[in-house]
Structure formats: structure tokens, C-alpha cells
């Protein structure tokens, strides 16, 4: 079975490394980066299926990363995981296309559940695109691809 390509993005190194170790124990290995800039480089080089993204980071913050990723790689499902989180942040993140919005601290199994749902959504979208393309409805297929839904 194909494993989920998961990217974890957070400037809190201890936190994100521990998260990665626990995800690996649950059979979901992940790549880890500590900045928005590194995240964009990894997305460009090896498009992940799902990204777990902190909002407040030095340099390019999470909201800007989300905006850029959804513009260039809309199929990547982005889950926000933040210690800051206001309702306005959540609203903006969802408008930009975030799959889900979590606040820290979070239970690992709850986060893993969201990661798996996000991955399933990505697979379903790909199947919808394939089915539409097979029917010749390329416009609708393109729409699904661009909206990343």
C-alpha cells in the first residue's frame, strides 16, 4: 500500500522532530523542515500528499506558505497546526484552502486521523479528475485539479 508522503513544517525543532518520530511509529514516515522557505523548496522538489504547517514562523509565515502552495500545488492538502490561532486566522486559512485547522497541543492520534482524511481526500480528488477526463469533460477535470478539492 502506498505510504502517505507527509511533510511537517514548524520552527520548534524539538516539537516537530518528536512529532515525526511518533508518526513513524504509526507507520507514517515524514519529512521535517523548520521554516516556510524550506517548506516551499520541498513542495517544489517532491510534492507531498499532506503538509502539517505551523502559522507563526520567522521569515515566511505559515499563511503565506499556504497561499503559495495552494497557488502552485493545489493538490497538496494542508493542515494548520498552530499555538497562536485566532478565529480570524482559522477563517483566513480555510478561505485559502486549508483542509483543517488544529490548535496546539494536540493528541497525536487526532492529528493522524486528520492526516489520513486529508490523504483520502487527495485520492478521491485524483479519482474524480481521472473519471472526468475519461468522459472527456476536461474543463471540469481542470477545475477539480485547480481547486484542489
Amino acid at each position, binding site marked *: 500500500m502506498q505510504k502517505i508522503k507527509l511533510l511537517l513544517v514548524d520552527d520548534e525543532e524539538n516539537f516537530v522532530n518528536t512529532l515525526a518520530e511518533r508518526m513513524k511509529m504509526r507507520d507514517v514516515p515524514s519529512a521535517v523542515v523548520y521554516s516556510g522557505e524550506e517548506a516551499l523548496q520541498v513542495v517544489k522538489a517532491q510534492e507531498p500528499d499532506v503538509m502539517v504547517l505551523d502559522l507563526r514562523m520567522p521569515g515566511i509565515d505559515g499563511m503565506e506558505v499556504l497561499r503559495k502552495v495552494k497557488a502552485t500545488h493545489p493538490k497538496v492538502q494542508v493542515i494548520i497546526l498552530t*499555538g497562536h*490561532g485566532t478565529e480570524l486566522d482559522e477563517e483566513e486559512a480555510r478561505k485559502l484552502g486549508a483542509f483543517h485547522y488544529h490548535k*496546539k497541543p*494536540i493528541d497525536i492520534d487526532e492529528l493522524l486521523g486528520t492526516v489520513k482524511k486529508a490523504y483520502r481526500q487527495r485520492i478521491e480528488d485524483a479519482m474524480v479528475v481521472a473519471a472526468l477526463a475519461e468522459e472527456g469533460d476536461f474543463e471540469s477535470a481542470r477545475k477539480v485539479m485547480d481547486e484542489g478539492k
Partner: protein
Amino acid sequence: MKQANFMGQMASALSHDLCNVLATIQQAAGLLDDYLGLARKESLKSLGIRPQFKYNDKFESIIAQIRSHVGRGQDMCELLSRLAHAPDENQGAAELGAAANLLAGLSQRLIKRHKTTLELTPTLSPVRVDAPLIEALVLMHRSMALVLERGSGLGPVRLAITTTTAGAPCVDVTREGISAGEAQALKDKLDPDLLGPVGAVAIEGGLRLVFDAADGS
């Protein structure tokens, strides 16, 4: 207000950093738990040749303690974050129910110090007033502190959102056992500069803060 904005920004930044610290502690405790689980599995698989980790139960108990306190810290961070954003939320249009809820959360230590409890009457619908959230909080807190100073041996402090007979939204801060005369003395201790356009009335049990309804309410 500039000072309040400054305090808010500092508190917001601290709240964010604290949340990150708690999240790191929580995941580290979780990782310990994961390794305990692996050790238990290996012991079971070995059919008893590899004995269970001697201090398994002790570690589990400590991990549970850590998780409990992380949860407690998380609640505090949430309150701190809401307080931090109070100066910039809906300038001039505080929602009294939300303000009372936030104050109830922030005042737990104060209430505990006076060896009493706080009862909050929930509101059925939002009550918006023509006052910034931070000012409503300061007034309600000051009133509660005055009511608490009245002395020990009285009942719980009560916060209730209600309306005057003329329909003005108000907050009653009361405690059973405070007479009308004592309430008047408490009202006289309220700083008029602090009150601003908000009215204060002595009532049986304590104080009533009378606000103007927000436009459109």
C-alpha cells in the same frame, strides 16, 4: 488604550510561545508512552522471557500527570490569548456574555484565594454594549474584587447579565449576605474615571453595572 494594546501584544506573543512549550512537553510525554507500549508488546511477544519493564506503572502514572497539567496549561493559554486580543476586539461593541465568561476564567485564582466560588448565569443570546471589551472586563473585575473584599462567610459570587426595566443591558455582580447599605459603600469605592459612561448602581447583594446598548442591538 495604547498601554492596553502593548500589554495585549506582549501577552499574545507569550501565550503563543507557552503553547509551543506545552505542545513539546505533551509530545515528549506521548513519545515516552509510545516506548512503554513498545516495551509491553515486546514482553508479550517474548512470552515472558523478557519481563515487563519494572517501572511501567510508575511511568504511566507520571505521564498521566504530565498530560493533566498540559491540559491545565492549555486552558490557561487559551484564556491568556483571549485576554491578549481583548484590546483589539470589536472596539466599542463588547459582548457581555463573552466578557463574563472570559472574566470567570481569568478570576479562578482570585476566587480561590477568597475560598468561595463563582456562579455565572448564561445568556441565551448575545448582548452587545457600547463599550470596548477591555473596559467591560476592567469594570466587571473591579466590581467583583470589591464584592469579594466584603469578607468571608458569604455565599458564592454571582455574575448575571440582565436588563434594567428600561431595557438597558447590565451586569449584576452580587454575593448573598451583602446588604443594600453595604452595597452603597462598595459603589462609592468605584472610581468614576474607571466607570466613564457606564452607570453603577448599588443593589441588594452588590453592584449593577449599566451599559448603553450597542448600535443595532
